[in-house]
């Protein structure tokens, strides 16, 4: 749409708005008087009473030199479960409350956290990054030297490929935080690895790169040169500040769109080689066993995916009245490109309507979507969302995905997911499938 068109559009919208506003004002007033009746003229106590915070001094600015959320937000937290834990929560995951997420950025304290030997606490003064192998000149960098490279800032999600992986054989979590919260999104700052490689000279036989962490598990993964010369980054900034320890302070790898596990935290070493490595986390784990008995290894990208975040089991519609106009909201994301469309179904995937995208739509990034719905009390719904990206991928049905992958794959499950909205407005996680 060019500028002129969009101006016209705005004018029409505004005129429309005034017309509509006049029409609805009668009903709006009716609603108000009803409320007044209810509180018998006494008024809403939240308005009529003095509030605790309204008269007394608040905190001096010297309090909380690093700000923290309101105490009332104490339930907006990462959560974990024993079933996904080993090593006393040292080889485990804590997941993001995506039902409370706003926009496409996750606050650093709520970013999902996964480690294989616990959260390491690295002294930045003793931080070193070694880059060697099939390069002309191996190097070792201090943190200051690393940060002196030209920086790039990009917004990307990081998703554990086991997001939704407990539910190949059927739904297990009546919770969007646990069913889809093995992911979070941030604005990352760092340097492209290819920029550093300009200095080092990559040898022509190099096909693979090992990335290794300095934590107690020495988490390692192998990456193909394609991605290294494309958009893989070494990052130190997360949403305008240093990485949090849980995200690999002071430095982690960021591999846009690909398995979170590849984004090695507490990064200490990159090595280039002609042959790949076969680390524990790309053999024992993070491989997808198919019914053929063969497993996919090096399954890089998190495929196109989406979920409804509101309503959700955490945010039901039990307080809605018949006829309420409510926004259905959700997230869509793809590690293989940019979200181009999201479709929403009210009957579990029989029929779809296109929803609207909202806000910034970026490559390999969370994308918000929205649909305005008039709530019909007592009507059961099956809400299914389905995203499409610009590489052409569309979320499969469960039957489609399972017919190729079986149910033992653990990772990379991106089939459409369904919330059942009951007659009372409660929300349950269900799946629509033949087997």
């Amino acid at each position, binding site marked *: 749409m060019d500028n002129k068109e969009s101006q016209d559009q705005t004018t029409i919208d505004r005129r429309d708005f005034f017309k509509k506003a006049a029409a609805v004002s009668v009903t709006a007033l009716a609603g108000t008087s009803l409320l007044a009746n209810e509180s018998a003229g006494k008024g809403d106590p939240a308005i009529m009473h003095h509030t605790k915070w309204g008269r007394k001094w608040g905190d001096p600015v010297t309090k909380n030199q690093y700000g923290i959320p309101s105490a009332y937000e104490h339930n907006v937290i990462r959560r974990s479960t024993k079933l996904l834990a080993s090593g006393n929560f040292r080889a485990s995951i804590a997941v993001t409350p995506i039902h409370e997420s706003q926009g496409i950025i996750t606050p650093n304290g709520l970013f999902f956290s996964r480690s294989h030997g616990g959260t390491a606490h690295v002294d930045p003064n003793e931080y070193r990054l070694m880059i060697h192998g099939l390069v002309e000149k191996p190097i070792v960098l201090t943190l200051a030297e690393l940060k002196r490279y030209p920086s790039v800032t990009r917004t990307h999600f990081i998703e554990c490929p086991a997001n939704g992986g407990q539910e190949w054989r059927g739904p297990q979590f009546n919770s969007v935080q646990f069913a889809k919260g093995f992911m979070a999104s941030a604005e990352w700052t760092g340097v492209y690895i290819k920029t550093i*490689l300009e200095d080092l000279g990559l040898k022509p036989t190099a096909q693979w790169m090992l990335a290794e962490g300095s934590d107690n598990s020495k988490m390692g993964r192998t990456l193909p040169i394609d991605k290294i010369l494309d958009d893989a980054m070494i990052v130190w900034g997360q949403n305008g500040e240093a990485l949090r320890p849980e995200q690999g302070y002071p430095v982690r790898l960021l591999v846009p769109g690909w398995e979170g596990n590849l984004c090695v935290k507490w990064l200490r070493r990159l090595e280039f080689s002609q042959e790949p490595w076969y680390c524990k986390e790309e053999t024992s784990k993070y491989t997808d066993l198919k019914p053929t008995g063969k497993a996919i290894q090096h399954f890089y990208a998190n495929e196109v995916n989406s979920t409804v975040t509101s309503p959700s089991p955490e945010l039901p519609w039990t307080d809605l009245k018949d006829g309420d106009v409510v926004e259905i909201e959700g997230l869509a994301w793809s590690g293989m490109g940019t979200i181009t469309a999201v479709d929403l179904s009210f009957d579990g995937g029989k029929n779809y309507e296109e929803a609207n995208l909202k806000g910034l739509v970026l490559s390999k990034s969370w994308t918000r979507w929205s649909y305005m719905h008039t709530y019909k009390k007592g009507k059961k719904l099956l809400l299914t969302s389905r995203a499409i990206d610009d590489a052409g991928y569309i979320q499969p049905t469960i039957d489609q995905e399972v017919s190729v992958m079986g149910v033992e794959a653990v990772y990379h499950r991106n089939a459409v997911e369904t919330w059942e909205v009951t007659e009372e407005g409660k929300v349950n996680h269900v799946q629509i499938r033949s087997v």
Partner: protein
Amino acid sequence: MFKLEAYNKLLVSTSVAAVLALSVVGCMGESTAPSGSDASVSLDIDGGVSHPVVNGKTGNYYVNPQAIGAKINNGRVPNAAELAKWDTDLQPVTELSPEGHGIPEGSGSVEDGETIYEAQCVMCHGDFGSGGGGYPALSKGNAYDLQKTLTNNRWKDPEADGPTRVFGSYWPQVTTMWWYIRDGMPHPFSDSLSVDETYALTAYILNINEMEIDGEEVDDEYVLDRAKFLKIKMPNVDGFEPNIAGANALPAVRAYFGKASNFGGQNLNQGAVRCMTDCQEPTAKIKRIQNGGIKDFIPAMNVTRDLPVKEAVAIDVKKVYTESCAMCHSAFLAPGSGDWAGYTPKGIDKVYANGIKGTEGGMPAKGGTDLSDADFKTMVDYLISGKIK
């Protein structure tokens, strides 16, 4: 698609093989998207799209073109000792690399391996590597038999047996085991085993997986060394796709992920349709969460906006014990000696201090917890207090 030309100078020599290996899709201005796909969509190695830098922008992001090709030359060249200290990874024997990479000289017996296992691993990984309680199994029996279970899939029959994925039945390479034990285990105190100890533990794990090397059974008398290690062939070495070994690995990987049907994807450029009406398979039904599902969330799910209940200051000793001490101090006993008598004569302050600092004998600092000193002392008191079952 990144502009490869800009990075060609990264290649210090330009052998044909190198150009092949690095001619990532589209570098010649053409798409190498696999047949059947829309030629206008250029594919990355992962099957997705990529955004070239055009007019100083990549996708929605502006880039500083001055930063491309700038020689910055930060840092210094590491010396040989530094490289040797950190370059401890192993790579397997392949056609291109007949000696593998990083596989050190050394040896260890199954017998020694068992002794170390009993002292440093059994508390988590269980007798004979049986696993449990959230700790991975290192064996489930005969590797060759169990490899055959990998075609088991509970897709059509939920009651059937699933596949058994443990080291012996599933892992493609033994180098992974050696390297991981050496660098990552024992979990609370990694990077503490010698080369020979690591060979011994590897030998023991091969033994409990009932494996053989070069036709010879890894029995209780077996001694593993580097030469024998190089000959190990894992039962499931051919169980993975796409191929990632050899000089032509990258084209194989690109081709594999260029085809959505290989990995259960649906691609509109490869025949998938965006169905809007009457889409559901007629056989599809609603499947609900069984038996309540998983709901032991920590902390419990709650979306109210109230003030937090003040937390009790005292630590829950039973909980800390179960989660952080019990796997080594089972039945509250000191490991090894079996009771606290051998420890307490030196004075309780010394016992506290050792526990806080950790010991050579295998006690991780504070048992691997991040308790305060005071809370840790409370735990020690609890352990010694005679609340022995």
